[in-house]
């Protein structure tokens, strides 16, 4: 173990990141999960949230919607995400609009068990994550 993790993030629209990092934090289905070199093989699904990966010099974050992470036996971190965006790529205005829209839709639906409700709940989550990631990276919040 050379104390590094090989992180690879791919999305259906192309490979996004392939680099050697010190630590990865992913939004696992059962809660936030930090992965350090030497981690046991694990497979977990992801919920909408923020991925943070750190290497010696810097710390970067991404917003993901549905995804999946695998730490292989060889210590490689494979991360499959439906969408993953860096803070710069996030359109904050659009995310805010999506958030408001989803909130309005949710307010209209009284039955919380319907498909429609769940769909909008997911939308809201995704929008919130985007806003959060963008804000953290210091993008002006106008």
């Amino acid at each position, binding site marked *: 173990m050379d104390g590094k993790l090989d992180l690879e993030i791919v*999305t*259906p629209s192309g490979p996004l990141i392939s680099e050697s990092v010190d630590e990865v934090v992913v939004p*696992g*289905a059962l809660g936030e999960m930090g992965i350090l070199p030497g981690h046991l093989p694990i*497979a*977990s*699904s992801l919920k909408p949230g923020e991925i943070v990966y750190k290497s010696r010099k810097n710390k970067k974050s991404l917003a993901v919607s549905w995804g999946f992470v695998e730490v*292989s*036996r060889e210590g490689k971190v494979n991360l*499959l995400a439906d969408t993953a965006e860096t803070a710069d790529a996030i359109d904050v205005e659009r995310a805010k609009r999506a958030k408001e829209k989803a909130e309005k839709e949710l307010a209209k639906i009284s039955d919380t068990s319907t498909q429609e409700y769940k769909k909008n709940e997911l939308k809201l989550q995704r929008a919130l994550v985007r806003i959060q990631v963008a804000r953290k990276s210091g993008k002006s919040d106008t």
Partner: protein
Amino acid sequence: MATLRAIRKRISSVKGTEQITKAMKMVSAAKLRRAQAAIENARPYAKKIHDVVSDLAQGVEPSIHPLLRTREPKRIGVLVITSDRGLCGGFNTNLNKKAENFIKENKERYEEIILYTVGKKVYRFLSKQGYNVDPSFTEILGSLSYQDAKNITKVVIEGYIGNSLDAFFMIYHEFKSALVQRIVVEDLLPIRPEEKTIAEGESDYIFEPGKRELLSELLPKYIETEIWRALLESSASEHGARMTAMENATKNANEMIDNLTLKMNRARQESITKELLDIVGGAEALKD
């Protein structure tokens, strides 16, 4: 010898054809660029999800998820992908032949082969041959989207889990380059984990949330991705094949124009010579 007028007419008609093939080539080249980018971007994801699935499926009891269970295949589904339009060389013909061979070879082995077609060409071909074809996905190529892959996946998975499909295959063109496309027959279901021996002492995967939940999210995604990739491969191949075919057609048209021009010049010269001979002959006759 054709008359001068007939040759001229012929040339202008060939020129017209050449213009069309040239334009089609250009359009295909533009479409190919887009399709090629799409498939090249989709491949790494498909590859990764395939690796992950075969990694995970190794240490797992097949009984844990219906998509991992195998049974004696009796009814199989085949997804055959071609294009809606022709004028792309042997693209559709080759695939049609391959599909028919596949059906003939496997007719004895299975009780029933259920055909799903994408693209009008193969649909027409197979239904003309008297095969029973499910047309639900035939006309998706006009506006191909990820949703289409999702829809196909839904039918496939429901069929597999509901025991109406015991195996699933795809026959499509794999895109190598604009010049080379290879027809592949791929078995998608049942999912067969790659045989890899796990060394002693290596730990098994930790699954979060649980094996069952995880696989039931991941396996359908895997199938969806594979179908989507096949659709993209085929679409890039189609444009590649059409571009090549149209380029050849343009070349042939040019050759034909050259030949005809030569012929026309010869005919013109001949007629001038003839006229001259007539005049000279007439003058000679007047002298006497």
